[in-house]
Every structure is written in structure tokens, then in C-alpha cells.
């Protein structure tokens, strides 16, 4: 097959026009759309715009940054690492053995000093570090279906996970989580519906990062400054084998959530940078002004030899 058009001449003219050419002969109708003449706004990046936008960003960001920093500063957060402390001194060198045997007493008691007034609600978290809950193996091993369905062996299936790492024998208040809607109404076993197994539910919400906190409980009472809290921890969970850290966190919240100074700092940094850039641009415009639409910057004027850059 010869792939070109050499068939013969004059077809379009001599013969009655084929269906193809019949279509061609239509005169295009005028519309602003087809003629690509729709009204358009054509923003120009003028020096004014550049400086204004930098200043606006700066002016907007710094207050937001200050506000969030302020909010963050008002959050009282107490972080206590307990994985080291909770090992009895004689097991210090053999923590792995300590955690793996069932003989040892895993309970340990910590006292936490509240440095500042903590308004209610005070949230209790446990924090794990270097724990890859987001690992694919981990993520894949979880079966949402099983959790949802009325499978009778559900408990058993999740049991290796439900080997919960620490029990808070706290002397304080009942647990009162709001969380739980996510894992539907399936019952794990007849006695306690899974939906009420809030600790499990929280745990099952996979953390995104290897360093994460999980909500454990809530203290619905203000904690006055210098109050001492005694926490009883059942140190069950083996993090020693992979060098993970376990921490207990008590924290209040604000509108930005927990203590999070990064946000405020980032806002202030970006805002400051923008203001700085605005000042730089003002200087540059003053020192080396380029009037808008200055033809001397056109390539043919800059390069009189006619060579474009």
C-alpha cells in the first residue's frame, strides 16, 4: 500500500463534491468564542502588584502567625517519657526480657507535676516514637471489613493488635471519648460492642507518621498549677525491641489544637520574608526602575544587531 495521495487530480472540482467537501464549504459563524475574542482580563505583573501582594501576604500572615503562636503558647503540654523509667532497675540492662516475660510486674507509677493551670478538658495521650504504624505491612494487615462485619472471631483476629501497650491506671476520671463513629456498629463480641471499645478504635486509626500520639482519655477538670498527678502505667507494650519511645502526654487544646508552635513560626517567617521581599523590591525599583512598557527592553532594542536573546 502506498501511503500517500497521488490518486488523481481535480477530484474536488470536477466531480460532485463528496460529503467531505460539502462540510468544508460551510462558512464559519461568528461568535466571540470561536474567534477567540472572549472578553478577558489580562493581569499584568506590575511592580505595584508585586509589592502590594508581598505586603498583603506579610500583613495577613504575621497576625495569623502571632495568633496561632499565642494560641500555641497557651496550650499546656506535659510530656513524660516512661519506657525507661518504668523498668525496674534490675532489668535495665535486659529490658527486652523484662517486657517479654509474664512474670514481672508491669505496673509502674509516675508522678507528674502540673507546671501551669490546665483548663479542662485536659487530654491524655500516649505517644509512640519510631513506631511504624503506617508501615504497609501494618496497614494491609488491618481488615476494615472484619471490623465491620459481625464476625464471631473478630476479637481473635485483632487480638495481636489489641495487645495494648499500656494501661492507665489513672486515679482520675472516667473515660469519655467522643470518637467512635468511624468504625460502625459491628459488635466484636456479645459483651462489649466494638464501637465501645474506644481504645481499640483509636488505636486502629492508623497514624500517618512513625512518631504519633493517640488520644487516651480526657480530664474534665481544670488542673491547677503545681498539682501532682500520679499515673499508674502498665508497661506491657514492647517497644524496646525496636528502640521506640513511649511517652505520656497531658495537654490542653486551643483553636489550633494542641501545642504547635511551628504553624505560628512558619506564618511569621513567611510573612516576614514577604515583607522583606517587598522592601527589596521597593529598593530595586527605586535603584533600577523599569517603567511599565518601556520599549528599550524589547529584544530588538536591547540587541541592535537584530539577534534576539
Amino acid at each position, binding site marked *: 500500500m502506498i501511503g500517500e495521495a497521488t490518486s488523481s*487530480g481535480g477530484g474536488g472540482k470536477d466531480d460532485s463534491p463528496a460529503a467531505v467537501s460539502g462540510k468544508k464549504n460551510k462558512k464559519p459563524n461568528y461568535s466571540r468564542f470561536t474567534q477567540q475574542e472572549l472578553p478577558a482580563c489580562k493581569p499584568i505583573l506590575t511592580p505595584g502588584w508585586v509589592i502590594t501582594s508581598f505586603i498583603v501576604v506579610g500583613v495577613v500572615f504575621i497576625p495569623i502567625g502571632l495568633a496561632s503562636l499565642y494560641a500555641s503558647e497557651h496550650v499546656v503540654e506535659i510530656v513524660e517519657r516512661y519506657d525507661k523509667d518504668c523498668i525496674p532497675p534490675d532489668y535495665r540492662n535486659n529490658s527486652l526480657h523484662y517486657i517479654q516475660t509474664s512474670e514481672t510486674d508491669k505496673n509502674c507509677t509516675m508522678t507528674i507535676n502540673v507546671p501551669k493551670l490546665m483548663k479542662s478538658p485536659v487530654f491524655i495521650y500516649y505517644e509512640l516514637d519510631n513506631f511504624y504504624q503506617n508501615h504497609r505491612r501494618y496497614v494491609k494487615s488491618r481488615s476494615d471489613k472484619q471490623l465491620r462485619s459481625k464476625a464471631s472471631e473478630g476479637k481473635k483476629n485483632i487480638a495481636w493488635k489489641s495487645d495494648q501497650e499500656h494501661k492507665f491506671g489513672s486515679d482520675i476520671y472516667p473515660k469519655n471519648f467522643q470518637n467512635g463513629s468511624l468504625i460502625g456498629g459491628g459488635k466484636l463480641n456479645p459483651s462489649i460492642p466494638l464501637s465501645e471499645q474506644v481504645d481499640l478504635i483509636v488505636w486502629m486509626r492508623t497514624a*500517618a507518621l512513625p512518631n504519633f500520639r493517640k488520644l487516651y482519655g480526657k480530664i474534665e477538670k481544670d488542673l491547677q498549677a503545681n498539682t501532682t498527678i500520679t499515673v499508674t502505667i502498665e508497661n506491657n507494650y514492647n517497644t524496646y525491641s525496636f528502640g521506640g519511645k513511649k511517652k505520656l502526654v497531658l495537654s490542653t*487544646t486551643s483553636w489550633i489544637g494542641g*501545642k504547635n508552635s511551628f504553624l505560628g513560626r512558619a506564618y511569621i517567617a*513567611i510573612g516576614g520574608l514577604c515583607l522583606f521581599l517587598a522592601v527589596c523590591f521597593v529598593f530595586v525599583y527605586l535603584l533600577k526602575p523599569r517603567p511599565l512598557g518601556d520599549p528599550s527592553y*524589547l529584544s530588538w532594542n536591547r540587541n541592535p544587531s537584530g539577534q534576539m536573546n
Partner: protein
Amino acid sequence: MHESSRRTRGKLRWSKLYSFSCLRPHTSDPDSAQELIGQPGFSRVVFCNEPQLHKRKPYKYTSNSVSTKKYTAVTFLPKALFEQFRRVANLYFLLTAALSITSLAPVKPLTLIGPLVFVVGISMLKEAVEDWYRFLQDLNVNNRTVKAHAENGLFVDKLWREISVGDVVKVKKDEYFSSDLLLLSSSYEDGVCYVETMNLDGETSLKIKRCLEATLHLNEDEKFSEFKATTRCEDPNPSLYTFVGNLEFESKIYPLSPTQILLRDSKLRNTDYVYGAVIFSGHDTKVVRNSTMSPSKRSRLEKKMDKVIYLLFSMLLLISLVTSIGSSVVIKSVSQWWYLSLEDSDPLFDPSNPSKSGFLQFIRALILYGYLIPISLYVSIEIVKMLQARFINKDKKMYDEATCKSVQARTSNLNEELGQVEIILSDKTGTLTCNQMEFRKCSIAGFSYGGNINEVDIAASKRMNTETEAYRSSIDQSDTTSQSLEMSEFSVVDIIAQQAILRGHENADNSNARNSRLSDVRKESVIKVIKGFNFRDDRLMNNQWIYRSDFFDMTMFFRVMALCHTGIPVEDGQTDKLKYEAESPEEVAFLIASQEFGFQFFQRTQSLMTLKELDPSSGKQVKREYKLLNLLEFSSSRKRMSVIVRDEDASSSIGLQINGGAYLESTTSHLSNYAEDGFRTLAFAYRALELAEYEQWNSIFTQARTTVGPEREELLEHATEMIEKELILLGVVAVEDKLQKGVLECIDKLAQAGIKIWLLTGDKKETAINIGFSCSLLRQDMKQFHVCLSKETESKNHLKDMKEEILHQIESSYQVMCQDNNKDSPFALVVDGRALEIALKSDVRGQFLQLAVNCASVICCRVSPKHKALITRLVKKHTGKTTLAIGDGANDVGMIQEADIGVGISGMEGMQAIMASDFSLPQFRFLERLLIVHGHWCYKRISKMVLYSVYKNIAFGLTLFYYEILTNFSGDSLYDDWYMVVFNVFLTSMPVISLGVFEQDVSSDVCLQFPSLYRQGQRNIIFSWSRVVGWILNGIVAASVIFLANVYIFSPAAFRQEGHVADITQFGAIMYTCIIWTVNCQIALIITHFTWIQHLFIWGSILLWYIFALAYGALPPDYSQRGFKILTESIGAAPLYWVATFLVTTAALLPYFTHIAVQRLLSPMDDHIIREMKHCKKDVTENQMWLREQRNSQRSTQVGFSARVDARIRSFKEGLSLKRISIYNNLLGFSGNLKTQPPQPSPPPAAAYEAKISQAFSHMDNRQDILGNNSPEIIRWLCNLSESELDMLIRLKSLILHRAKAIGHDELAKNFDLPTLRAVGLLLMEYLKGKVKDLSQVQGLTKLVAFPECCNLLKGNPGEDSSMEELKACIGIDERKRPTKRPGEEATKLKKQRF
């Protein structure tokens, strides 16, 4: 009507007019060729009139149907799929799609297979539709009918595809030949026929084909009932001009030559019918063989895009490798992580075999990070290009009212290539010209008639006027006295030009009752447009020439014009005017012209030519007969043809000829003027012969004619030389090969856009050069290099010699070029077809192309279709530049296919060029808009689109990788599967498409006003590697900012007041939101042209994400997975989510924004500046500057109309400033106390010119008297005056001195100081202008045109009866004779002429 003309002239032996051709020997030696028959390569046997014998082997040949389809129903799927998977990206996606079915895939198979099927499906659908149109076109051609011999002398209609080898067909006038035929007989007695081979080689002249004597008698249907013959000939081959074969007929063998072969796709002309036997059919025909395969073209940008994709691939490999190594390193420590329960064997996490796990992780990473490769880019580009093509098709400004056709983008995958064209290779006939000759001007006995001033001068003077005005008003506002006469100096040209143009029109509204009759007549003559005759001059029109004094010369001139040709008259039903048909269209043009002038050639018999002549003495038409004695036909060596005729009453014969020898001086200048305007010029001359002399010569000539053998040509040449001498020149005519509408402007714009235009034509050199001039590809001050073979070398046909000669020519030209670096006089290269053939041989090629690309314009003449294609390919390959080939005929098909972009003209001729083309235009002029507007736009659109897509996918894909690091390289994805699917398909695709379809950096008007913006595409500065890398970096930065910020913001503390901590689903959704915001805001920063569509798409896409999140979250958790109630319950309510989105988006865009702010400030690009200028309305408020920049942008242009005008203005200005300096020096010489006067800006002194000036001054009576005694103020003032003003002042002063002396009161002259005289001069000018206006309305003034010249006191050369052209020349060329006559005398001259 037709019947009668057939009766009278049908059997006329046309061939006799070509006295040489009937006796011309065959070009190739028939004997040696005949020996070849039967040998391999010459084995074809055709049984004429026995097609049934060709039904079976071994004589079964291919059928006559022709197919141009790429696919058939069976081959479509495999072939089209193959085409699709030639794209590396597609192949990769195919691989990942296959892998996604296995357990390795980190995501669901559907998310990978779906997009791929979509992409490939759309592309294949497009291919299928395109091929379907080709199929319809083939069908159309194959289903044409032709009369074929059935049996017993009966001819029936047969479809073309049913014609078989051996069939005898009858082809009628103006029909195309269905296959290659052996001519058996024609409607003419002597078996000749005329063929137009336009579709084959682009030549417009008719070719004569002649049948064998033996088959001459077969000229009626019935005679074919018994006819049988056998042809043995060469096998099918692509050579159009050779044929070897013989015919066995009535047991005799006759050799055949190309003269007997009628080729498919040529057209029968001027012959009522022919009979022919089919020799080659369908794909065996020479024209089909001649064509090359149609390549599938991909644009340069797309090819580069492939490389970008490779780059992304390497990035992909790199990060996959990092992942894989990372995972195999960490897997050991992972074994400690009991909670992952690695005991059950998962090959991906097998601590005992880390390398295997690593490898598997690598494969998985390849699939997972596939988002780095913008798969949606291909789909979006396909869609965008389709929409772009629709816009191109719908553009009303590219719609031709005349042919009711608009531009068709036949393939849409080259849109952006249109924005990068650097070389256009153009066909001439049918593309640039409309193949129509027009009689434009003539010069008879030294006077030029019909002259519009040439457009270059008009434009130049107009522009200088505006420039001067602007200059004066801006620089020199205080000096009102020097309201310069320089302006009026040019205005004069304007007036004349306008008069010349408007002549006839301006009288239409003349209310003067006395002139009403005349104006009626004139109106009529203006309205009546005569095809082929575009001549307006009242001195000659309407038989006015008989009142001229030189009417004898005129009579002879017109008579020669009416006699010396090969045409025949054709009656036209409506009017008493005749139409003509002739071998060349020029002849038709001047036959029509001579008819308009009253010399109607109305009958030709074999030996008699009859004219109806206008007798100047009586003013009546008389019929005169001329006996045609000899016709010496045109030959390229003599460059003339002549006829020898005998006047019926005079005993002497008159020899007449074209393109004669000695010219009168003025005629020569006219001739060169005409030639510069691009007209074809022909000179007419005659000679009266004594009967005895003729007879003596005739015997020699007849002897030469009848000689057979090699010395025949020489003898004939010698004989013609004997008679073609001592000619009396009558005049010249200028015939315009009419350019198509708008070609000149189009070429001008294209040249300004930095596009080089090469002219490739099958025509002869002279014609090609003429067209070069007329479309401003050439101009007078260009250095022309001619590369052609000398006669001797060519005749020797020795390849090595030829090569050496060509090489020598090329090298010497190149040396000249290197030495001469003057930018103002560019170079042009004119190459002859034969020389081109040598020059394209591999070892000379390099030098040739190097020379050619350095020339401003290149003209190749006598080029065959194959060579057109070859040169296109070589230029493309050698220079690496984007080429565009444009043509209209089948001869251009090769070049159209070969070029990066092929454009077909859908004009009058066949469809082949269009079928092979990528774009079809109804007219050449639409190329301007197609390239400069649409090409520019499409280039920018697609480039930006690709760059943005790269950015977008990196910004998204890299976050996946970063997350991998935090999951210990385990291969999990941060996002929900559906987020990943919708990212490219819905959430970010619409803005990209709107960018690709609607983006306009500048509006179409500005594109056309600043064609140099087009150079951005040629230099590919939008899609340069630095920009690609920049965008990749931008993507990396964006991904890093987004990821890190999110990690630090959301981890580890709670993100809600309720104390909740972000888990993987929320974290993913938040990050995804940030990405959607960032990439969509990023595109808003790129887009410079926001219509409501862009707004809708960009902001709509962001909104769509929230809608999607809501809808997806509302689904039952079985379906929504990670998205379950994500927005409503968890992240939507958290202020931190929104605050973080705001922060991250701003931070991610900040680097880019800062970059463009700096770039705009320090090195803005042209389109930025122009947009700013438009924004500030500078095009309105500072129009001067706007226009000036438009001109500045063209500065480097070397060809085109504007460049010619520039060159002319330059020469004006140079001359002017030289003069000023000389005059100033003169003045300075007289009054030496003016040394402090600042010297004028000095161009290099021209010694010769100064000499001339001082000579001019020397014969002034007393220059001290004239210019002395002036105060320094006056001298300074004088220096500010234009040279012409000074001229006038000097002359007036000298007149006054003369007068004063005459009346004996010398001191009176002192009262007239120079300022006073200037006022007098101005008054005088105005008075004269008024006079001229009056005069132009006086009836019966035959020399009307001469008057405006006389008012040109400042410049004129009124001593002679000068023509407009000379006047123009005076203005144009400053080194003219300085008028010595005084104004007073001129005024009297004026009066004389009035009566």
C-alpha cells in the same frame, strides 16, 4: 458555438506552427534503448485492446484503483496499537497496568488501567476518523468514470478502478487521464494532443504529445473493433520523463518514446478527445510511483517532550532505586519490629532475602511513583490540539469568500509546530501566483505607459512623510519657518501616485456637465474588468494613441504584438471581443492587450493571420491579412521567437521578433524598472526585409530544417542568426504574473517573523526571478548568486566536471559572502534544477546548504518533484530547522510530505496536495495568520501546558516518595486510591486544558503587528531545557514545602480543639488539599488571559475537590475507605486545616512568584513588554512609539515588501544627507566665519558625489552673489533646510540676479533675500499644484499624465517629455542631472503643452 469552432479549426494542423518540433529528433537514441526491451527491467508486455488477457498470470497487473489509506479493517488494530505504543510513556503505562494485576501493585488495577485505555482509545479513534476521510477521498477518485472500449467499437462508461491494463480509453477535453496511456490518436489529423502536466511537475505550459504515424488513422470509435497491438516496454518506474518501449502493430515494430505516453493525473487540453491504451495502471503509474511514503509526523515540541519524559523516567528510576535500597537496608532492622509480624512470609518484606525484597520493592515503587509521569498529559494534549484545530478551522479571518473554503487542519498534531517554522519552501504556480498573466505596462518608442508608480516608492515616501512630520513636531517645534518643503517633495509622489491609481475613479463624481459624457465613458471602462489586462493609461486607452505624434511606432508596436505569437482566437459568445488560447499565458495577455488597443487578431489559418487594425489616419477598423512565411519558435538560447510575415499589399516581408537586441536608453531604464517590479518583460522589434533577401535566407533555412543529424541544431541557429539582426526596437511590454491576493503582504509579514522563504519552482529561471522580484523575495540591491551549469559542461554530461563547476561556484559565492558583511545588502541564491541535482549530491551538499541557509532568499528553478522533496529533506536534516512546505499540485506532494509541516492550497487544482498535507489553505495569504497568530499561540499554549503538567505531577508524585521515607520504604501510599485517580483526570485537568486552548499571550492583532514575537517559537525559548529544569525544580520545591510543612504542622500534637490527632486518612486528605490548591493556583499564575472559562475551571477545580470529598465521604465506608466523612467530621471542622492550607499554598507558590517578579523586573521578554504597553494603552496614547517599535522589530528583516521600502528609504536618506553636507560645505566655504557651526552628522564622504555637486554649482552665474552676504543666522537656517529647498532658493536667486542684470539694476536683486524667496517659492508651488488639478479636468488632454510632473519644480527634469517613471526615478535616485532650466522656463513649457 463550440460546434462551429470545431468545424473551422478542429482539424487545423497546430503542429505546423511549431516549425521545429515536427522535425526535432528524439532526445534519446532510440536504437540503443530498443535493445533493452525484453531484458530484466524492461519485461512488461501489454496487449492493447485485449484487457481480458491481463486477467490471468503472467500478464496480470495491478488494478487501477489507488489507495492512500494507512489502515484496513484488519490491520487497523495491530498497526494503530503499534503506533500508540511507540510512545515510551504509553509503553510504561502498559507495563504498569500489566503489573497492577499482580499482587505487587500498591494501588488498585483500575486506577492504572483506566487512564491508559482512555488515552490510547482516544488517540486511536482519532487515527480511525482521519483514515476514514482518506478512504472517502480514494473512493471519490476511484469512482470517476472514463469511456472505455467494450467491444465492436462501442465505448462505455467505466469506473476508474475497473480500468485494466490493455483497455482502450477515450479521454475528452479537460479530463484527467485515468492511468498511464499510450496515445493512439487524437481529434487532430496529425495525432497531436495538448497536455497540461501541472499536477505532475507544476509546469503550466502545455505539452505536446504525438501518436505514432501507424496508429494515426484510429481516430473514430468504430475503428477499434478490430484493433490489436502489443506493447513491450519497461517495468513500472518513477521516472516521469523517460519511457522505453515498442509497439508491435500489424506485424511491424515501432519504437515508442515519452512523446506517446500520457501520464495519469495530467489533463487533456485544447484537444477534443484522444484514444489511448492503458499501459500502467493504479500503483504502477509513474505518478504514483513518483510519490513517496507518507510519514507520520510528530512535532518538534512533542519530540522534545519525549526527552522530558525520559528525564522524568530517570527521576522515577532514581527515586524507585532509593526506595528499593532503603527498603532492603531497613528490612534488617525491621525484623526487630514484632508488630509487623514478618514471620509469615511476604516476599516484599523478607528479612532473610533483602535483595529480593528490595527488587520487588523497586518494581512496586515504579508503579507507585508513576504519578511523576504525566499520563494525562497525552490525553490533554490530544484534546487540546483537537480543540485548537477546531479554532483554526473556524477562524473567520481565514475564510475565503471566493472559494467558500476555510482553513482545514487535517492533522491536529502539528499545531504547535506552526509556531516554530523557520524555512518555508513554496511552490510558485498556483501557490504564490494564480497562473494568470496580466498586461500591465508598456514602453513604446521610449515612453512608458500605464505606469502606476511602483508601490515601494509610494510606501517609502509615505513613511518618510510621516517620519519627517513626527520628527519636526517633536524635535523642532519652535522653528515654524522650516515647515519643510522636503515634505512636499514627497507629497508630490503621493499626489501622482494617487492620481495614477484613482484615474478614472476620481472623474466619476465630477459634476461638471460639460464633462459628463467623458466621465461616463471612463466610468464604463473602469467598471469593465478585462481578464488579463490590467492597464490604465488615458494616453493609450480608448484609441487615444492615434492622436499621439509617434503613432507610427505605436501602430507597428501593436501590429507586432498581434502577430508574433502562437495563439489562436476563440470566440466568446457574449461580446465581440475574442478570447485566446496559446502555448504560454503571456501570449494570451498581449493578444488581449493588442485587441484592446484596436488590433484584434481574429483569425488564423495555416498560412494566414488576419487582423482587424485600427487605422490611425481614419480612426476606423480595417481588416488586414498577413501571410505567415516562417515561424522561428522560442528557444532558450536565443531567448526570442520571431515570425516572418508578408503584408498583403506591401511586397516586403516584415520580420518580427520578441526579446530583441539593442535598446534605446530610456527603454532600457523602463525595462529594468519593470523587471524590478517583478514583471515579465518582452521586447518587440521589427525589421523590414527585401523580398530577395528573404528568399535567399529562406533557402538556407529550409535546408537547415531538413538536415538530419547532429549538426542540424547548429545550422538552424546559424540560419536564424542571419535573419534576426539589425532589428528596430519598438518597445517593451511588461506582463505581470499575477500574484494571488495578499501574497505580498503575507510574505512581508512572514519575513518579519524571521521566516526564510525558499521558492521551488518547475518554471524556468527568468520566470522564477521575476516572481522573486514581484513578491519581494529579491530586490535590486541584493547580491544574487547564480549557481548553474554552463552549457559546455551540461552537454558533456560528465558528473565530475559538473561537480567541480558547481563546487567552484558555491565556494566563490561563499567567499564573496564572507567578505561582504554589509547587512543592508543581503544575498540571494538562484539555483537551476540541473545544478541543484549536482549540488545535492552528498559530497557537495554541505557547502551548498551552508551557502543557501546564509542567503536571505533562495530560488530554485526547474526543480522536479523528487528534487523538491529531496531538498526539503536535506534542509530539514542539515539545518535542523523547522520547515514548512506549501504547494498546490501533485508535484508538491513529495515536498509536502517531507517537510515538518506540509500545507496544501485548496485552490483550483487537484486534491493530491491537500490529501498529503497537514493543513490545507484556500489561499497562500492565510499562511500569515496561521503561522503568526495560531502557530504562535499554539506553540506557547502547548509549551506552557507541558511544563505545567510536568510540574504538577512532580509536585504530586514526590509527596508519595517523601511519605515512603517516613513509612520505612514499605510502599504504602498516603492517599486514597480514588484521590490518585481523580487527581489527573478531574481535579487538575480542566485548567490545563483551558490553558492549552484559550491562553493568549498577546491578542491576534498584536501578533500581526509584531511578527517578531514569532521568533520566540523559532528559538524555542518557552520550551528550552533551562525552563524544563526550572519547572522540575519548582515541582520539587512545591512538593517538599507541602510535605514538610504538613508533617510539622500536624504531627504530633492534636489538630482540633477536641484533642484529636491527625491519622493517616486525615493527614492524606489535608496534604491532598494543599496540593490541589497549590497546583491550581500555580496555573493561575501562568495564565495571562482570563476569560470566564479559565476562572470557572481553575476555581471550579478547587471547589470540585471539596465537592468530591463531600460526596465520596458520604458513601458507605465500604466504598469510601479513607475518605469516609473526611470533610464533614474530621478535617472540615478544624480551623487548623484551613489555616494550614492557606499557609502551605502560599509558601509553595512563593518561590515561583518571586522568580517571575525578578524576571519581569530585570529581563522581561518581548511579550511581557508588549502586554504592558497594551495595558498602559500606549498603542493609543503613544502611537508614534507603538509604530516605531513595530518597525524596529522588523529591523533584521531582509526580504519582503517592508524590507524593500526600508532599503529605498535608506537610499533616499543617504543621498539626502550627503547632499546636505555638500551644500553645507559649500556655504561654509563662502562664509568662513561660521567655523563654530556644529557639523552635521557625517556619513562617509562620497567624493564622487561632491564632485558632482560642485560641478552643478560651478555653472551657476555667480555663487558669491547668490549665497554670499548672508548673516550667520541665515546660514544656520539654510543648513536646516532640505536640499531641494536649497536648490529652489538658489535657482530663484539666480533667476532674480539674471533678471536684475537684464534690466540693468543689479542692486534690486539684493532686496530679495533668501527667506523672502522661500516664501515666493512656496506660493509658486501651491499655485502650480492648483493648476495641475484644474488641468486634469480639461477634456481631451492626451498628455494629462505629464502635467503633475511639471509642478515638481523642486525635483523635476522637465526639459524632456519625461514619463512618470522617470519622475519617480528622479525622486528615488538622488544622483540625477541637476536641472539647469529656471522656473520661468518651466512655466512656459507648461503652457506650451497645454495647447
